[in-house]
């Protein structure tokens, strides 16, 4: 270390290197992050790649297009779509009510919305299965109406919807809170009807958040396992989801088949994840006016 003689300015550290970072801990924090991300998130992917590359293309294609597996894709996709669309509407309703109105029990509802994230999926699964079983609290009433939920694809929708309730509420709520009352007041003062104000003034600000919420809800539903297997009945070709297909192949010790299907699922979820992030980045940028 050198000390400048005349004025006693503090010693020059790290001579010859420009101090690009003012705040401390860049190397340490990034090092920990990269190490962790590589070890926990990325390294395990190599196992899948190795396993899947052990198959020929024909084998791979045969496995992932097996009719029972294809049927499971279909079931998973349409139930997840139904569940996330339901949550789009229910989430919007909850967010609206929680932001716009004061009423007794509001705080409780606000807290309970997050229950599906806190409650283990297996617990949710046996609970929903019990509620909707033929002599369950809900099942017996629905049976009278001729509606069977437990052990049908409808049960899958219920389980998926339950586990992803918070997504839309929690993405729409902050946007609704930030919405300036002035725009709405201006529209109302110009004589627009409530429906028109909602469609023309409020909804355009909300829908990017709603799309994000619905997409997150959809992604989660695609991968859901614990809550579904108890209520779905798991009948091949009818109510088997893809996650379960992978699980079944594993129990048959058919690792290659499990990997092939998992590779498809993983690819789909990663594409969804990156699209959601891109989409969020884009609409956030637009909101910030850049």
């Amino acid at each position, binding site marked *: 270390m050198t000390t*400048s003689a*005349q*004025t006693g*300015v*503090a*010693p*020059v*550290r*790290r*001579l*010859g*290197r*420009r*101090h*690009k970072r*003012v705040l401390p801990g860049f190397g340490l924090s990034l090092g920990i992050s990269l190490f962790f991300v590589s070890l926990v998130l990325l390294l395990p992917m190599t196992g899948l790649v190795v396993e899947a590359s052990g198959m020929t293309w024909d084998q791979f294609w045969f496995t992932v297009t097996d009719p029972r597996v294809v049927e499971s894709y279909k079931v998973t996709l349409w139930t997840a779509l139904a569940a996330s669309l339901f949550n789009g509407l229910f989430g919007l309703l909850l967010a609206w009510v929680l932001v716009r109105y004061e009423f007794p029990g509001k705080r409780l509802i606000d807290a309970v919305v997050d229950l599906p994230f806190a409650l283990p999926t297996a617990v949710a699964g046996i609970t929903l299965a019990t509620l909707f079983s033929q002599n369950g609290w809900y099942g017996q009433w629905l049976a009278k109406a001729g509606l069977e939920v437990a052990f049908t694809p409808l049960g899958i929708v219920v389980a998926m919807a339950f586990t992803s309730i918070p997504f839309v509420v929690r993405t729409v709520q902050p946007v609704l809170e930030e919405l300036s009352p002035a725009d709405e007041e201006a529209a109302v003062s110009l004589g627009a009807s409530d429906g028109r104000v909602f469609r023309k003034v409020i909804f355009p600000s909300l829908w990017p958040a709603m799309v994000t919420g619905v997409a997150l809800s959809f992604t989660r539903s695609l991968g859901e396992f614990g809550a579904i297997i108890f209520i779905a009945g798991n009948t091949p070709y009818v109510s088997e989801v893809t996650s379960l297909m992978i699980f079944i192949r594993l129990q048959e010790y058919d690792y290659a088949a499990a990997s092939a299907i998992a590779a498809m699922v993983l690819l789909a979820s990663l594409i969804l994840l990156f699209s959601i992030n891109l989409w969020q980045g884009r609409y956030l940028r637009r909101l910030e006016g850049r």
Partner: protein
Amino acid sequence: MSITIDQISKNFGGFQALNNVSLDIPEGQLTALLGPSGSGKTTLLRIIAGLESSDSGRILFGGDDVSQLHVRDRNIGFVFQHYALFRHLTVAENIAFGLESLPRKQRPSKPDIRQRVARLLEMIQLPELAKRYPAQLSGGQKQRVALARALATQPRILLLDEPFGALDAKVRKDLRRWLRALHDEYHFTSIFVTHDQEEALELSDQVVVMSQGKVEQVNSPTGLYARPESRFVFDFLGHVNVLAGVVKGQKLVQGDAWVSLPAVRNDQEAQLYLRPHEVQLARTPCAQAKLPLRIEAISLIGSEVRIELAPEGWQSDEIWEIGMSHAEFARQNPARGEFWYAVPGVGHLFVADSAQPRTIDWQYTEAANASSM
């Protein structure tokens, strides 16, 4: 301690924030970095502090190159634009933070620190708020605490980023006066960034006007106001009345308006800049100029009467403004909607081929004309 800024350049992505800036900040003076947003003034301040690194160039404190020195070791005081008070520490703890961060050998004892904090609280006139948290303070109080915190370790250089930007007008004036007094008492070298020309002119010993990453002009407040050297500085120092026209036969002409000029090459475009106090009003045109205007608005607020006028029979991008004393206003009694003529006293002429203005004083010409008649 004097500060030398030697050929500093800085790019952010494709944006050149600073373009080869060199500057001397004399010891013990209060210097203002004045400019619009995006002029690079805050970037320069942060580079001096060491919060940002420059792409090239050097920063010297009292002749020593500190470019490679970490902020922590530069021994400067820095007051952030939004104060950056530690929200989870009390006022007293905030002020003591720097002292408690000193290496064990240099760190004063606990009672010493307490005493110094008490003294600083006296200095900022807020001893009763020692136990408060930042969120419980007003903007002006936060600003003072931020200052005390920056001064606690007795830095020889104090840097302030838009120190009064977030305060309302009244508090801002009080604080300005207080900061000036503080500076005169302690004589540290200070630099503050501002976009408010009034603030820069009132508070500082030296003003550095910046624009688009370059220094436009450096001068004392009086010098700067008397001799702005560029169109930019003119525009930035307050309202200015502009007559843009063509030089024809010793006159600058546009539409019905003209102003007599000393020897200037004919048939070139030129702009005459006149500040509100450099123009008077008359009922009839005078010998050196004919500038017909209609009064649009009269504002009686303040120490001066401000009159806004629109050109009649010629054009200007912005409305004209003329300032006169209340006594003069009472004597002339102009009213809204009336036609008047502007009489230039002093003007600053920009011709197309030169960046620097030429100052013209008609009072002299008028006197000469009068004596020759």
